[in-house]
């Protein structure tokens, strides 16, 4: 735990601006902005490194609709799934840096750079236009579970299983999920088998059907199961209790002293894009975040539970803090950090 506690200062930036969200107020006041030298005179292309049906595909569609709605500039989405986002990132870095190509990406880009610094740094090789979704993770059990009903009884039960208990997540090497689970298991002294499901449906079905004992996930992704009363959160991995989960204890309340890693999704442009075009894109995407359609989308995904908005400067802080935190954790895990 000492290593992780030592990261608190560095990671504090992550949580600094991520308190529970208040009433929404658009940070970008200008409703219009002149196009610099007529840019954009044609449709933008948004490279999305994941498929259209997942969380990234949906946020890309919602933001594209919002930006087009208030600027009348069409956005074509080009999905390039595979390689945990690296295929899309590589394709984007090879695309012309003329401002017509933008990228959607998630925090995987930051953790990938933390593990291997030859990978693009989203805060330096790219310019964040806006981070439009920031969320935390929770541990869920079935609502009708009788073997354990809350976090303390779950930990006690898991310990009694001698390593046979299971939790479903996306435990790719170095992922936010795997790192956070290491924090949790180190802090509690429990041993639990992580089952990696890369698709949501089998992951949620595994908990519903009793194939696994618990699920590690973000609340927006399982909202329908929460609304239907199928799943019950027993632990929030965040520094304070968000209002809608006021009865769910946080990891710190349960004696786990680590800084939470957040899941975030945002939009980027190449650092070599012309500055005046970048400014227009920043305005268009940050203002897109304020559109009613986008706000409704974020609300449907529980993305208004904590402050989901970061402008360029805020996004750079978020990314830099994440990279530092991941890198230190990777070293402590004995991983080969390049």
């Amino acid at each position, binding site marked *: 735990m000492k290593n992780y506690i030592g990261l608190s200062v560095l990671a504090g930036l992550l949580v600094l601006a991520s308190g529970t969200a208040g009433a929404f107020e658009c940070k970008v006041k200008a409703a219009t902005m002149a196009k610099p030298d007529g840019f954009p005179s044609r449709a933008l292309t948004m490279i999305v490194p994941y498929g259209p*049906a997942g969380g990234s595909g949906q946020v890309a569609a919602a933001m594209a609709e919002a930006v087009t709605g208030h600027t009348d500039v069409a956005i074509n989405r080009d999905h390039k799934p595979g390689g945990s986002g690296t*295929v899309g990132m590589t394709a984007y870095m090879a695309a012309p840096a003329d401002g017509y190509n933008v990228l959607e990406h998630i925090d995987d880009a930051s953790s990938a750079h933390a593990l291997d610094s030859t990978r693009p740094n989203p805060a330096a090789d790219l310019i964040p236009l806006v981070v439009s979704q920031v969320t935390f993770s929770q541990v869920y059990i079935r609502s009708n579970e009788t073997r354990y009903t809350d976090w303390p009884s779950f930990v006690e039960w898991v310990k009694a299983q001698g390593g046979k208990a299971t939790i479903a997540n996306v435990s790719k090497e170095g992922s936010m999920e795997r790192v956070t689970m290491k924090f949790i298991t180190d802090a509690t002294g429990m041993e639990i088998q992580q*089952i990696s499901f*890369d698709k949501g*449906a089998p992951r949620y079905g595994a908990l519903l059907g009793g*194939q696994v004992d618990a699920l590690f996930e973000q609340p927006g992704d399982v*909202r329908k199961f929460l609304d239907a009363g199928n799943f019950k959160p027993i632990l929030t991995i965040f520094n304070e209790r968000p209002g809608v989960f006021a009865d769910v204890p946080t990891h710190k309340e349960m004696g786990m002293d680590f800084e939470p890693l957040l899941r975030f999704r945002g939009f980027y442009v190449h650092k070599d894009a012309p500055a005046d075009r970048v400014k227009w894109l920043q305005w268009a995407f940050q203002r897109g975040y304020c559109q009613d359609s986008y706000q409704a989308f974020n609300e449907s995904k529980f993305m208004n539970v904590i402050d989901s908005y970061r402008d360029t400067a805020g996004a750079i802080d978020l990314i830099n803090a994440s990279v530092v935190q991941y890198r230190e954790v990777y070293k402590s895990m004995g991983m080969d950090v390049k």
Partner: protein
Amino acid sequence: MWENFAAGSLALFSDPFTIAIFVFGVMGGMLFGAIPGVSMLTLAAILLPFTASLTPAQGVMLFAVIYCTGTYGGAITAILFNIPGAPENAPTAFDGYPMTRQGKSGKAVGAAVLCSAIGGVASALVMMAATEPLANWAIRNIGPPEIFALVFFGLAVASSVGGRSIWKGWMSVLLGLIIATIGQDPVGGINRYNFGFTDLAAGIAFVPAILGFFAVSEIFVQAEKKATGKFDAPKVGMSFPSFLEIWAHRIAVVRSILVGFFCGILPGIGATLAAFMGYGEAVRWSRDKEAYGKGKLEGVISSETANNAATGAAMIPLLALGLPGGALTAMMVAVFQMHDLEPGPLVFYNSPELIWIVFAAMFYANLSILFIGLVETKTILYLLKIPFQFLAPMILLLATIGSYIGRGLVLDVIVMFGAGIVGFLLRRSGYSIPGIVLGIILGKIGEQNFAQGMQMVHYDLFTYFSRPICLILIVAGSLTLLAGIYKAVGSSRSTASQ
């Protein structure tokens, strides 16, 4: 049930705009399913934003109809040109295209039309009758170990299909399994065999591999025949299968319905595995295994019945539990969400009228396959009269576009032509193209579930045998393997003694 079905039918056909959407879905699904490269997913992605202006029932119904007819659409090009419109139509090409070369295209297409309709309608009826209990049974009893065992069971007969000998069949399957390991490993995300190329980390996509091994290699084969004066243009066979011919395969139809339904009901599995398993079971239970891959009507019947039987089944976990069975059903979740709805148990209580319009629409969409399919088939068969020198470039162009469009990667075009060349050479040597494709597709699904299953059983392989469904499937698969090896060894000895 019947009252609800009647109410759903009435709601569907009492509004002209809803009827128009239904017809659009039927025709659009068939068209996009039939054109290689684009698919029902392409159409669904295009239509997704427009569903916001429809009612929830119209939006979900449109996607459900596209799912039914799109799954059938790809069978036509698979049979006529060896170009499966989608991975779930690939097994249809195994025997459908050889039938075309033998002048039996009408029989193959007719059987595909009829059996797609039968599989889809049967699946829709079961879906209407027992959505909730089936969904709950599936998620409680079928996990990654069972899905791996199912894939193993399916692969056990793969060596029989299309190879000159069972050993060459096995070599072909193993090659497919090796190709399936390219890219990130399914649980740890570690790159394998990508040789430093980022794009290869995403693995070999199904569509370019299928287009290369089937369509491109076939063009090379026919071009060689053309160059050597041995080219024999496919004859246009207009005779449809008779009722007695279909009736003779009634057991295969029922078996494929069961197999397709079982695969479809598993979250995240869907029609592709259903088609391959349906085909595999046809081979397993046949007395004439060697005839498969060479133009056997039962191959077409089994594959097309099974993939359409999976469509209704895939709606079950989606509607009952909110768990999509594949990419298109995942898009349906987005349609629900656009209207502030979530698929899952509450939909049955909150929006029963929506559920029954969707159920009714899927039933009628499958019936439409029968009528529209039979009407259009006679016209489509005339495409075979296009001279090879015009048809081949068109197919290559379509296949190239189809390979590129999925992920926008030049790698996929390279894979397609590479698979075409490798496929051409392997076919000359008697290796099995269906075996390779079976290995690629079942290998990816199988490896992922094996790895997840091993995590679940704490890396104790014997725990697999304590799960009854696993035990049955693994033992049955092993027996099939041993029987195949015994037969092959006996055949080799007999050849040697002569």
